[in-house]
């Protein structure tokens, strides 16, 4: 059954990385509760454009929770208050009629604001470039199941691989730490025989890049795990610590 609500939005507007930003309040009436949060922002932008005002810049792409492009700190939570969902999967039925919704960009030293709600997350790409891959000698296609992998390892590697690199973990962490992301990326490879070979060098390279880029020190608050849209577990952080410490102690 279609229902509609009237809402007030407090949205962060910032013209450029160096400019001083501020909250601007918008009223939006008759928002269908079937709209997704991003559709609601599209409607607001259409309205702004028709009023000859500059639309609000925000990141998005797939709109089905798989690409990791959407962000937004909504009412104090990255990707909104629901666990296990991205902003593009959040719907207006989760808000009340007359509610004021505060929308802010990810805030972290390593994720500078580019414009309005869009931040620069290329720091994550740099961490991946530092070691988040496997070197393979390409040849003929190997036979399927030629390398035996236990179901347990396969499952855990798959869970780690579900990280979409959205940065919500960094955004919500009081220490601005990227450990959950790096742990997921190290784990998905370390758990499999193909990635295991370069495990030690990878852990060292990725952690050192992460530190260099100005992410904070993890103090195991668990805020990342609670807000991660893909429910990546902090047990992967223990594995990253293990990988890194044994790599350092053995070198």
């Amino acid at each position: 059954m279609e229902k509609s609500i009237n809402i007030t939005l407090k949205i962060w507007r910032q013209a450029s990385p160096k400019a001083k930003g501020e909250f601007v309040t918008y009223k939006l009436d008759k928002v269908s509760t079937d709209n997704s949060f991003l559709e609601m922002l599209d409607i607001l932008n259409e309205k702004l454009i028709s009023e000859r005002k500059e639309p609000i810049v925000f990141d998005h792409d797939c709109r089905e929770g798989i690409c990791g492009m959407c962000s937004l700190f909504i009412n104090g939570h990255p990707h909104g208050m629901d666990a296990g969902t991205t902003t593009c999967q959040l719907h207006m039925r989760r808000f009340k009629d007359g509610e004021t919704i505060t929308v802010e960009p990810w805030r972290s030293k390593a994720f500078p604001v580019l414009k309005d709600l869009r931040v620069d997350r290329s720091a994550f790409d740099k961490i991946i470039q530092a070691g988040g891959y496997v070197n393979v000698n390409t040849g003929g296609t190997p036979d399927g199941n030629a390398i035996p992998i236990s179901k347990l390892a396969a499952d855990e590697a798959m869970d780690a691989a579900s990280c979409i690199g959205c940065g919500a973990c960094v955004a919500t962490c009081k220490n601005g730490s990227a450990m959950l992301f790096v742990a997921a990326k190290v784990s998905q490879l370390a758990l499999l025989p193909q990635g295991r070979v370069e495990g030690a060098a990878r852990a060292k390279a990725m952690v050192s890049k992460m530190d260099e880029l100005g992410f904070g020190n993890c103090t195991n608050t668990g805020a990342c795990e609670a807000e991660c849209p893909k429910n990546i577990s902090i047990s992967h952080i223990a594995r990253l610590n293990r990988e890194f410490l044994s790599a350092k102690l053995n070198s």
Partner: protein
Amino acid sequence: MWLIDSSIGRKLIMSITGIFLVLFLVFHGTMNFVVLFSAEAYNAIAGFLGANWYALVGTKLLAIGFVVHIIYAIYLSFQNQKARGGESYAVKNNQKSVEWASQNMLVLGVIVLGFMALHLFQFWSKMQLVEISHKLGLDNGGDLALAKDGAYWVKHYFENPVYSVLYIIWLVALWMHLTHGIWSAFQTMGAGGNIWLPRIKVISSILATLIILMFISIPVYFLLGFSI
């Protein structure tokens, strides 16, 4: 040096010093607990910890442990503050699963440190310090006979309910520091996975609670009107 330059290295130092301090607390708590049953037995144990070489080595190690833990705590907290960036969130909420203690370890640590100053003044400066001064031929005005009578000082201070309450506040702050600190140290050292993480959390909470119960039983005992 990776123990200083890398985040995980810094955390390793934090966890090793933390666990070292926890081990000290286990020893200290067990020893204190004895005072509730026998003042003589307690004094006998305290007697081992005067100005002899092993007690002095222990004291020095402990002091180093504390200083390193605190220096790293401040350094890490400073770096983490910086990593947050200039602008803070207008609205920030935590999911229910995030423990308050985990977000306020420095605050709890500073509370622990403040009360520790009081504690060192009340006990250490009247006991081991007097013995050390005496050995060095200095006189800090302390009474050497009382310096060996730990039970006397316990009674002396805890018979005053104000001190008992202060110590209880201190121990509650320490308990909160430990409920997060102990499992966090294991996590930092790389222990645990999907199965062991929840187990480590439970074991750590039990350990933290047992340690604090041993300590807190003494001021509570006195507050209930008993004496030793």
